[in-house]
């Protein structure tokens, strides 16, 4: 809608050129301001362990924990053709982006979010494109994307991440991690998780974290590289199999005293125990390379 429609036509002949010279840029500025993204800030008081759900088709979602018992949502839609709804149902806050007309261009279906939550909050985030970034949230988390990358820092709880092509980075995460993708790369750094299950088809998987006693670590891909880093003090039982690829190992493994492995009839495989074998590591690839390397 053009802002010129707001100027009565009969005013212009009576206005001198100097006034018009000031008026026109002002109107243009108003036009620009009215089309600018409408930043919206909302606050919701919540009790312990609140649940926050976010459904957004495209955009940057940044979630951070804070010490207040409330949820703050700052949303910035890319156009006035969409609207962000946020409503509270008990101890749950639902946030969603919806279109205001039937003919919204895909580029207009974008909203960015900056959200603060209590650190024990549970998050359910669905964001197709853009990026999802979460820091210091200790509650359970379920993140699903298509092309959007997912970055988690200092998270805990039960972390479930599913992407199609988006990458996944998890730094200093604890608890239980389950991640799956088709072409996304995984970077699991400085973890303190007792259960890690990561599966990507064509992506790479890098695991550089602690192998906790009684922890289980399952890393699987189709192609690409699976790489784990270990320290001299680590203790694990290891199984690495690549059907058509290579297995490179720098760990001095001994035959496992805990369980008897049967050598598979297919592919390249490596079994053994490092130190006492307290954690269990399983790596499987179809034609990718598996690297078991010393930590720098």
């Amino acid at each position: 809608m053009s802002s010129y429609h707001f100027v009565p036509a009969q005013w212009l002949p009576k206005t001198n050129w100097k006034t018009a010279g000031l008026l026109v840029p002002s109107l243009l500025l108003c036009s620009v301001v009215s089309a600018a993204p409408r930043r919206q800030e909302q606050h919701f008081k919540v009790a312990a362990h609140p649940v926050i759900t976010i459904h957004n088709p495209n955009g940057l979602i940044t979630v951070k924990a804070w010490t207040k018992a409330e949820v703050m949502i700052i949303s910035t839609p890319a156009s006035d053709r969409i609207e962000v709804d946020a409503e509270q149902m008990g101890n749950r806050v639902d946030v969603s982006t919806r279109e205001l007309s039937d003919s919204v261009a895909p580029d207009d279906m974008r909203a960015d979010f900056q959200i603060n939550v209590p650190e024990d909050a549970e998050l359910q985030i669905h964001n197709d494109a853009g990026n999802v970034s979460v820091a210091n949230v200790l509650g359970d988390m379920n993140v699903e994307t298509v092309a959007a990358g997912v970055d988690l820092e200092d998270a805990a709880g039960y972390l479930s991440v599913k992407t199609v092509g988006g990458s996944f980075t998890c730094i200093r995460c604890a608890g239980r991690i389950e991640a799956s993708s088709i072409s996304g790369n995984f970077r699991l750094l400085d973890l303190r998780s007792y259960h890690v299950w990561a599966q990507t088809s064509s992506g790479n998987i890098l695991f550089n974290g602690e192998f906790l006693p009684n922890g289980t670590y399952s890393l699987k891909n189709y192609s690409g590289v699976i790489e784990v880093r270990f320290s001299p003090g680590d203790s694990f039982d290891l199984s690495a199999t690549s059907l058509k690829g290579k297995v490179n190992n720098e760990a001095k493994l001994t035959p496992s005293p805990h369980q008897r492995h049967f050598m598979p009839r297919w592919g390249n495989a490596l079994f053994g125990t490092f130190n006492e074998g307290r954690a269990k590591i399983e790596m499987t690839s179809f034609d990718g390379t598996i690297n078991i390397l010393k930590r720098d």
Partner: protein
Amino acid sequence: MATITCREFLNYLEPWMEGERPPDAHAHAHVRTCSHCSSIINDLEMIHSEARSWSVSEQDAPERVWISLRAQLEQEGLIQETIPASEDRAQAAAPRTGWFAGLFPRLPRPVLAGAYLAALVAVAFALSGPVNKRVNEARWLKGTQISTSPLSAQLNFAEQNSNSYVTRSNPVVAASLHQNLAIVDNYIALCEKSVSEDPQNEVARDYLFEAYQQKADLLTQLTERGENVQ
């Protein structure tokens, strides 16, 4: 017409495979209408014909089996390689009882019987190994194809439908879904090739089924997003 159950038909299965057809018309009707039982009969007939073709091509044990057996018995002192001259004469006078008896002239009968039995087992094992391997591979391949063919057809059908859905959704999302669908299709083709080359390869089969699962998930997402934008 009342028919019989699969459990009841099992009573007829053994004579059926021997070529005997029961007079009970219900049994015939059951085979015609029950895909499960007719599939079992087809499988058993395939195994039977496969085994028969192998046994025709290798009726006698290979000579190396007998040479190896003799060498083993000689090494263990159960037979002697040379025959004393006196006995050689007596043996020449005696009627020939066949090449096998001549091979082990001084062997006690129980030992001979045991060795013969061992040889039979060895021959049977040598013959049955390749047969079992080929039959097993054929069964594995057939089993995999039976389970994956309808799945593959359904997924291809769903893929054709989903292509029209996603054209109006976010181009980045649509591109990602199609790109990853191509990746999964490529993996399916590679896994199918591996399975057909080595039907008993459990790892390849697991990857194949996982790739199908991923394709189904992707098509679901394509369809959902298409419906959302329509």
